């Protein structure tokens, strides 16, 4: 005991005298380890149970899918599948797998592994299942031979391929070996990976950090020369923007994703730091309740849309945003710039107000935004100012995200106006168009409860149509009609931003990734 006390006193004194600053990136015996600072934890890594930006970033690092999104504009590239073909009726998709693909334990990634993975995802009915469950039955997937897998859809679904980059393949042998009471290995895959991706899971400290190490002989090879290849990546949870900023400046993180617009602006001129600033695919819109309350009146919705200062929206992001010119983001296939998209025009706003049930304004509308989202709060202030000219008051209400989702799940409780960010899951137009379909009611992106039977019919038709030209025509009509119906204020597309140290190389932006999500595979460090 006495010795411990002496040790304690000595060590404390020495420590206080030699508290050294932290080094940039981590150097280990295996090589350089990149540190990614992010705000969001990864509670479950299972690729068929959960996904969000941070989870998917690590899922993509440890697992492979048949195909992969890469680049800007996002293009689907062969990955586990070398090639594929579709039947004339669009019902059958046949994929040929790469011969050399192998899991981390050396097992080959064969057709049976692909079949099992899709079956597992569909049967669990969680995570990614919603993307394909209406079109694909678990028993309609066939392993034709070791390298050929066939999907027989229930009905043609043109967007099928666009969702496959998010359907990761797990090693069935490893998963089955760790099943508990027929749980499809769910418990095991919470914090283990049974994948074939470029990284292996090394350390899993929930709520603190997750470390992955590079697979030296990754079957697909590496984009960077061996000398530059990182030994691994640590995804470290840093929740507060101020702490992220401090960590980047101090070299405790090599790349961060959650700074404030002002911080990104400040870092643009900071020596040693690079700001990645790219037009994103996330839309910011203000959803009106189209069915209940004053905003059920289309003329009131139009009046509000014309009263808003759109340049003010962009200024809130210090110019790092583009105004929406269609309900579809620009990076979505089939996007058209819709003519006559509302821009601030007070005369027109008053004209529409006069036609509404509230010709003198004289009403208060609630505006909900996610508590803590500063930009969304500022948009509320902008509306407060702009709508005062129509004698409309705005009651700004910050709300926690789960509560906002609950409110928006029914027309009776959905607020008059709610600011919502939506990131489409794929580049196929169906990923956006279906948000305006009545089948999406109850989900956060459909809290406007938009109803136009013609539009719904066209959306259904477009997802069944195989030929692109015919689909493109339908989607052009859908975009125009949605704008004409004004279910929401079509706001802006905020840029996606990251800040990283200048020695971090290989950042490749792709708009189809979620906010904050980056492809870790091409990263490397240009420093000794």
């Amino acid at each position, binding site marked *: 005991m006495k010795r411990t006390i002496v040790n304690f006193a000595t060590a404390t004194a020495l420590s206080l005298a030699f508290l050294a600053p932290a080094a940039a990136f*981590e150097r280990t015996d295996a090589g350089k380890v990149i540190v990614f600072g992010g705000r969001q934890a990864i509670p*479950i890594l299972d690729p068929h149970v959960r996904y969000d930006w941070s989870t998917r970033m690590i899922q993509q690092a440890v697992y492979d899918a048949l195909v992969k999104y890469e680049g800007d504009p996002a293009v689907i590239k062969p990955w586990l599948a070398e090639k594929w073909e579709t039947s004339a009726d669009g019902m059958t998709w046949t994929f040929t797998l790469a011969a050399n693909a192998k899991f981390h334990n050396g097992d080959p990634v064969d057709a049976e592994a692909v079949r099992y993975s899709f079956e597992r995802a569909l049967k669990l009915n*969680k995570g990614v299942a919603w993307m394909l469950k209406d079109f694909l039955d678990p028993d309609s997937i066939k392993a034709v031979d070791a390298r050929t897998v066939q999907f027989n859809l229930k009905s043609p679904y043109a967007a099928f391929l666009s969702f496959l980059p998010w359907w990761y393949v797990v090693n069935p042998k490893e998963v089955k070996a760790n099943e508990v009471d027929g749980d499809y290995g769910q418990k095991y895959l919470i914090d283990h990976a049974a994948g074939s991706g470029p990284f292996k899971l090394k350390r899993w400290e*929930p709520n603190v950090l997750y470390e992955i190490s590079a697979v030296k002989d990754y079957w697909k090879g590496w984009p960077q020369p061996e000398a530059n290849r990182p030994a691994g990546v640590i995804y470290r949870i840093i*929740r507060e923007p101020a702490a992220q900023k401090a960590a980047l400046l101090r070299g*405790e993180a090599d790349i961060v994703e959650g700074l404030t617009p002002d911080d990104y602006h400040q870092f643009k001129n900071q020596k040693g730091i690079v700001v990645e600033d790219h037009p994103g695919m996330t839309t910011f819109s203000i959803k009106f309740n189209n069915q209940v309350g004053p905003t059920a009146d289309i003329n009131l919705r139009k009046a509000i849309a014309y009263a808003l200062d759109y340049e003010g929206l962009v200024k809130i992001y210090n110019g790092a945003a583009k105004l929406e010119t269609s309900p579809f983001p620009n990076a979505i296939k089939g996007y058209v710039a819709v003519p006559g998209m509302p821009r601030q025009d007070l005369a027109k706003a008053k004209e529409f107000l006069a036609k509404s049930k509230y010709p003198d304004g004289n009403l208060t509308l609630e505006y909900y935004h996610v508590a803590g989202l500063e930009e969304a709060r500022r948009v509320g202030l902008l509306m407060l100012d702009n709508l005062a000219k129509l004698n409309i008051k705005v009651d700004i209400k910050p709300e926690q995200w*789960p509560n906002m989702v609950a409110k928006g799940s029914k027309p009776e409780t959905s607020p008059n106006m709610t600011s919502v960010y939506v990131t489409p899951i794929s580049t196929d137009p169906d990923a956006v168009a279906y948000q305006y379909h009545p089948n999406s009611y109850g*989900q956060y992106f459909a809290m406007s409860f938009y109803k136009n039977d013609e539009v719904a019919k066209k959306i259904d038709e477009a997802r069944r149509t195989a030929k692109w030209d015919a689909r493109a025509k339908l989607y052009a009509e859908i975009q125009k009609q949605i704008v004409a119906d004004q279910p929401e204020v079509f706001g802006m597309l905020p840029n996606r931003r990251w800040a990283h140290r200048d020695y971090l190389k290989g950042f490749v932006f792709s708009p189809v990734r979620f906010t904050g999500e980056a492809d870790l595979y091409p990263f490397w460090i240009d420093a000794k």
Partner: protein
Amino acid sequence: MLRFTLKRAAVMLGTMIGLAALMFLITNIAPGDPARLVAGPDATNDMVETIRREYGLDKPLVEQFAIYMRDLLSGNLGRSIISTRPVLQEIGRYLPATIELVLVAMTLGVVIGIPFGVLSAVYKDRAIDQITRILSISGVALPAFWFGILLQLFFAVRLGWLPVSGRLPLTEVPPEPITHLLLVDSLLRGEFETFRAALSHIILPAIVLSFPCLASILRVNRAEMIEVLQSDYIVAARAHGISPLRIVGYYALKNAMLPTLAIIGLRFGWMLGSTVLVETVFDWPGIGLYAVSSALTSDFKPVVGVTLVIGFLFMITNTLVDLAYAWIDPRLRKA
């Protein structure tokens, strides 16, 4: 004494059951649909139902409460809907970090608060007293998150002396656990480099957490010391020519320490609750951070679990203080 102890234990049990029921009620009437949140933003209604069934959220509230209380009495705090792990297991993982932080902060509060309280009383209305009073008011008034960020920016970014956040450097392997307290375990294992790293990480959050506690101890100790120093027996001691150092450090401080001890006991429980803000700012992986991240995702079982653990520790501390008082002053046993 035995009767007194048993009475206190019965009160504790009743309070815990009441607290559990209250927390269950609050978390269940709060708006938000955890099942939908877990299912994901794009999940269809039947996928949400799958999650609801899996966690028993489809059952009537009364039945959910009965199951919850039954599990609780058998020591089961339920499962986190976000991580799917047992809450008790997760609390076990995070609690040592919080205990370590609170112990270091409390040590700072006591070691700094008591001497400064004494000095402030002895040199009443002099410069040191004024400085100490400013310190104590600041301690109570400064918001922890703001103070924390300020310290991070100054000591971590500007001076580069201390790390921004976390409990250990990223690639540092923690010592084989004995107590699960990094500072203690690293010393017991003789890993001084790890000790140095752990100490450098705990300094800033411990300062922020200790500041209000330090202020309270200082204020109470000052007030008591001023009163005691004016009492007749101190005047008599002075008249007998006993040295001022002995009068202050032994005769006066001994009597002034009783209320200070009560404050230390109360502040220990208060500190456990305050870790919510401090741990969030410093990404300190304790139960405070666990509670915040769970609350933000409508994951209510961990929130209830953490509240019960903090409540339990709070009551234990207070009971120990009460027992100590009762031991010192027999009149309290009859009260």
